[in-house]
């Protein structure tokens, strides 16, 4: 511990703490621009200069480690003069014109800093050189005229996301933020995660969907869970007048610490499916608008007459509360099959394996953060579970190995330290053989020959797996793999062999929760009737076709789709942003889903709709999802 004095207050802090963080512990405010709590200190903007007794010049507090008996002052005339000078230089360097800037009026850290120093004008004028603007990206606009060269975006792109797309070209006043080696952002290696936009202190990186739609002070914020995939990153949904303005990562969230991918951050902004606004009943081969009570009554008759002759199908984007209530209905009327819309053998194989194992065989995704060797197979997680890929990619500069087993092109191709092109058909066998190689039970060259692999690559991979201190296996299960059960067994055996943590990607956000309530991720429909809670899910064509085969259908859906078009009764329901509930994510965390928007008039949540259906059928929900989860043999510990 080190003792120091800041503005007359004495504090003891850990050795290695920066003066800035020590001051923060004392709640002393030191203004910063290039500093960001999630990024390594950079010391680029000089806003955080402080006076250190005995030091010849002012020192940047963000990079200065504390020293014993240091005496620091943060509020002297000399410091304020220096801050004003720093700001004057920054303003003169580029073209910071507030009246037509998207972040002006509260959201700009540069403007706020100038206000805090009481700056009424710029002592030094800009030199009227115009800098490039890049609007080639579908979501992000890169405006070099507003850039203060703090490199937060560059650090976020590399340190947090591990993508290393952003960088600077030229030097000094000519420094220009560029993607790759000067490609337009839209044609670059940018994956559109938008982390750079979230960390940008000025209007240099803005997102085109939310630009000029409301400042931080004008929007409402709801902290909830992203439903883009099974990870369940914490999001901050910003709304204004019941309209979605922007989605931001929640830095305080424990799942991803503020990281999001394009699916979570931007895709909900471009949702353009047509909403179902009234219940529909098929009459003379055509769907006609009906009242909720009419639809409820007709649905009740259909279910009662098909007792023991129907399948219940649920989207795994639904909350535990909804699924539990629906299970009551399915049980009460002897559903022949209870399925999820995931329709994936690989996902169900994971849950099946768990039911045969005595204890969970998967780890928490926190374990990915300090892993030094990643073995990835089954799916391209840079597409479907992107934040997991960030955790892997960002460890590579620190020396982590990234070994992927895939025959097709993947987003990891530029990052992987080793690629083993093995066909998914022989994946199970290969994983067992890899297990043998790791134990030294067999010859590498033979195995390489068997799978037509480059021997050197295989030697490299085995060596990397063997020497790793914290190896992890990321098993992508979102796409079906032939012989799923065998692959799952081989993967679990390999992880035990290597003493590696395993994470499987499972299905949608509440895939694990649905499994916990007994909904099967694969299997055939049975009976003549299908009661489907489609929610706001967009099914693949193949899955859609499977469910379209049902003779008669009752579909609860937020949006119009081929499935609702062929249904006999359609109930409109709320979408993911409109309802509350609980979800169980990829690693067994129980996450909260909170309503950020009000649903259109007269549209109930999925939970309420099912509750009304159950009530009409005279069934009271008795199932507690918390209890069911406790007795569920989960692949990962639920907590």
């Amino acid at each position, binding site marked *: 511990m080190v003792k120091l004095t800041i503005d007359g207050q004495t504090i003891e802090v850990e050795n290695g703490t920066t003066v800035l963080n020590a001051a923060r512990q004392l709640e002393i405010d030191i203004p910063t621009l290039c500093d960001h709590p999630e990024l390594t200190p950079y010391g680029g903007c000089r806003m955080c200069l402080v006076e250190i007794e005995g030091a010849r010049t002012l020192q940047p507090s963000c990079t200065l480690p504390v020293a014993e008996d240091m005496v620091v002052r943060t509020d002297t005339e000399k410091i304020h003069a220096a801050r004003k000078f720093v700001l004057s230089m920054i303003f003169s360097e580029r073209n910071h014109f507030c009246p037509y*800037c998207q972040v002006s009026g509260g959201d700009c850290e540069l403007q706020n800093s100038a206000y805090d120093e009481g700056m009424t*004008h710029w002592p030094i004028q800009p030199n009227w050189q115009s800098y490039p603007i890049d609007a080639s990206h579908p979501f992000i606009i890169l405006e070099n005229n507003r850039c203060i060269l703090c490199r937060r975006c560059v650090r976020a792109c590399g340190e947090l996301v591990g993508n290393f797309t952003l960088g600077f070209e030229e030097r000094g006043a000519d420094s220009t933020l560029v993607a790759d080696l000067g490609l337009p952002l839209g044609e670059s290696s940018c994956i559109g995660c938008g982390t750079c936009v979230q960390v940008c202190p000025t209007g240099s990186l803005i997102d085109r969907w939310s630009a000029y739609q409301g400042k931080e002070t004008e929007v409402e914020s709801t902290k909830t869970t992203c439903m883009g995939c099974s990870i369940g990153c914490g999001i901050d949904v910003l709304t204004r007048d019941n309209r979605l303005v922007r989605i931001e990562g929640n830095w305080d969230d424990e799942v991803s610490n503020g990281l999001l991918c394009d699916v979570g951050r931007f895709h909900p902004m471009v949702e353009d499916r047509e909403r179902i606004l009234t219940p529909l009943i098929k009459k003379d081969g055509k769907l006609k608008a009906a009242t909720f009570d009419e639809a409820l009554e007709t649905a009740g008759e259909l279910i009662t007459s098909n007792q023991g002759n129907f399948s219940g199908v649920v989207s795994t984007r639904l909350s535990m509360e909804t699924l539990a209530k629906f299970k009551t209905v399915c049980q009460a009327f002897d559903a022949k099959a209870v399925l999820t819309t995931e329709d994936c053998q690989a996902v169900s194989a994971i849950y099946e394996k768990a039911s045969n194992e005595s204890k969970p065989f998967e780890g928490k995704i926190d374990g990915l953060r300090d892993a030094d060797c990643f073995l990835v197979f089954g799916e391209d997680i840079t597409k479907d579970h992107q934040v997991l890929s960030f955790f892997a990619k960002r460890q590579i500069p620190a020396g982590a190995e990234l070994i992927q087993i895939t025959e097709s092109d993947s987003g990891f191709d530029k990052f992987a330290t080793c690629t083993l092109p093995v066909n998914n058909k022989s994946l199970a066998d290969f994983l067992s053989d890899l297990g043998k190689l790791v134990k030294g039970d067999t010859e590498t060259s033979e195995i390489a020959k068997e799978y037509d692999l480059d021997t050197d690559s295989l030697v490299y991979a085995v060596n990397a797996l063997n020497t790793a201190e914290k190896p992890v296996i990321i098993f992508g299960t979102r796409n079906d793999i032939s012989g799923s059960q065998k692959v799952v067994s081989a993967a679990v055996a390999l992880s035990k062999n290597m003493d590696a943590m395993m994470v499987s990607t499972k299905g949608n956000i509440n895939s694990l929760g649905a499994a916990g309530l007994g909904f099967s991720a694969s299997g055939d429909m049975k009976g003549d009737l299908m009661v489907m809670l489609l929610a706001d899910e967009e099914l693949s064509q193949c899955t859609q076709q499977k469910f379209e085969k049902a003779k008669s259908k009752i579909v609860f859906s937020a949006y119009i789709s081929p499935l609702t078009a062929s249904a006999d009764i359609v109930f409109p329901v709320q979408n993911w942003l409109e309802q509350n509930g609980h979800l169980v994510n990829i690693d067994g965390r129980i996450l909260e889903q909170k309503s950020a928007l009000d649903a259109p008039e007269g549209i109930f949540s999925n939970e309420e709709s099912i509750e009304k259906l159950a009530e009409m059928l005279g069934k009271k929900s008795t199932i507690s999802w918390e209890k069911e989860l406790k007795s569920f043999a989960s692949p990962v510990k639920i907590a």
Partner: protein
Amino acid sequence: MAKPTVASDWLGGCAGCHMSFLDIDERIVKLVELVDLRATPITDLKAPDKEGVTVGILEGGITNTYNEEVAKRMRERCQILVSLGDCAVFGGVPAMRNFFTIEDALNRAYVDTPSTDDSGQIPSSPELAKMTIVRPVHEVVKVDVFIPGCPPNADIIFYALSELAQGRIPKLEDNNLMWN
């Protein structure tokens, strides 16, 4: 003691700051009790008194040689010079033309616009002022008080003027400091 005198003028701006000044509404009565409002672009008397005024207010940036003259005249004739609004303080929206050459800007305005036919030509007469690079007022003459804002809120203008009327230099901070 005689009331302090105030004169204002506008340069390369949009008159919005003067409109915002008028938005002080009935408080203008209180203001004229405190000050003698002399020449302004929105009253009959246009040029500040030769004998001088206590406070001179300029809206808009310096966009041509005529603006320079007006700014210098105001500076000579007032004790305290106030830059009112983002154009006067920073150059503002007109300063966007600084990214182009003056020739390009004139061509765009008088020749290239879709609504201009073949007869379009850049006006030229020795009597016309010459366009310059757009600058904030303090690049041409010394400015004592800066009131940024596009336009500055009427409350901010009223606060600043009432401080000046009572012989104090206004200090803009917190909610009174707004650049946009």
